[in-house]
């Protein structure tokens, strides 16, 4: 599950500083919410798709589409009836079903949804967990909050394994392996109870380990990893300004 988060590589997007990548996310959101034409949104979404193709490979364009196609179909089917402005394109018994306004709004929503999805996907797939936490720490997130994030991310695989082990053990003991139609409560309550007891029993152990390692003391901390500094950071921040300008050019042109 954690492996799905970050795809290792050495592309320009991978090498781009974590802080710049985190800062570009609100710019992506802003770019797709600024009122503009579907053509502009198409250009922005296509630009992001090109960046993903270059940095992660063309195959990486498919996972978001595979996951989100039902939402895209729903947007295509359900948006036109709510927006009947402009000239009528298709009507049934005097009621406008499809209009130019409806088509325009549908395209806007589809491209906005795809563009934002691809924008976040590109950042998430090229940002390692350590860099994410270091970046958030640089932006002022308290040390305790970063520590919580780090521990959570490290605990997830072990807990997922516990879930599967406990579920399989319960299935074997209750003989319900073959029975697919079971009430949700009867199937999941025993497994959930076992997994949660196992999880909460780990809390005092983890707390004592944290205290033993000096959590809560005011001594300066050592760190084995850090983010870019000096000219490397300046280049990345310059790239951030250029990317932001490219994403927001419709607004800049209007000004």
């Amino acid at each position, binding site marked *: 599950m954690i492996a799905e988060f970050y795809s290792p590589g050495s592309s320009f997007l991978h090498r781009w500083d974590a802080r710049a990548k985190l800062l570009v996310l609100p710019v992506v959101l802003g770019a797709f919410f600024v009122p503009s034409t579907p053509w502009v949104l198409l250009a922005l979404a296509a630009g992001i798709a090109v960046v993903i193709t270059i940095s992660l490979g063309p195959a990486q364009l498919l996972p978001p589409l595979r996951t989100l196609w039902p939402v895209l179909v729903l947007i295509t089917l359900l948006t036109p009836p709510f927006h009947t402005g402009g000239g009528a394109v298709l009507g049934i018994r005097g009621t406008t079903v499809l209009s130019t306004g409806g088509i325009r709004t549908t395209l806007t929503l589809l491209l906005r949804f795809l563009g934002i999805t691809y924008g976040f996907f590109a950042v998430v797939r090229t940002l390692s967990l350590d860099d994410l936490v270091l970046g958030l720490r640089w932006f002022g997130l308290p040390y305790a909050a970063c520590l919580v994030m780090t521990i959570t991310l490290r605990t997830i695989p072990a807990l997922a394994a516990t879930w599967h082990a406990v579920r399989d053990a319960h299935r074997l003991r209750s003989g319900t392996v073959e029975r697919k139609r079971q009430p949700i409560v009867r199937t999941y309550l025993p497994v959930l109870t076992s997994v949660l007891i196992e999880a*909460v029993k780990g809390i*005092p152990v983890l707390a004592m380990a944290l205290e033993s390692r000096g959590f809560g003391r005011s001594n300066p901390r050592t760190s084995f990893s850090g983010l870019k500094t000096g000219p490397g950071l300046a280049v990345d921040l310059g790239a951030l300004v250029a990317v932001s300008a490219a994403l927001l050019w419709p607004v800049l042109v209007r000004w």
Partner: protein
Amino acid sequence: MIEEQPAASPAFRVASIAILAAVTTVLTRVVQVPLPARGYINLGDVAIVFTAIALGPFSGAISGGLGTALADLLSGPYAFWAPISLVVHGLQGLLVGLIARARPGAVGLQVVGGVVGMAVMAGGYLLAGIFLEGTGPAVTEVPGNLIQGGVGVVLGILVAAAVLRAYPPLKQWKW
């Protein structure tokens, strides 16, 4: 210090939030419960309701929000829902915990808290969906969110009672 007043220790708070956020992420991402009709729901809401009842509103808010946000981030395509989940499920955990804390152990209040939290969660996603997907698609997601929230309330309350009975030290960990 941990043995005397566990919930007052900063290390204990960090540990409890981190582990329960991980539980929330696992129940959101890994566990897919097939519905009798069709489709799947996840059990992330169970973890949120359980945490809010067993460990209090602040644990419920932080671990619920963080756990679901991380689940969205780890999913890849749903990454942009992470900030929305952080706020919506954080509010859900806070409300469930605050209402349930009014009279600890009262199942009626836990149900009320769960229903209020479920309504806030479904309403929050509806609002976000209207902005991102448009009104039609956003409205179609409401029943699914309500079913998932309802299962979360029922299972969350039951599992909280079961875990509190099986592991009594948990009663001292609220903050």
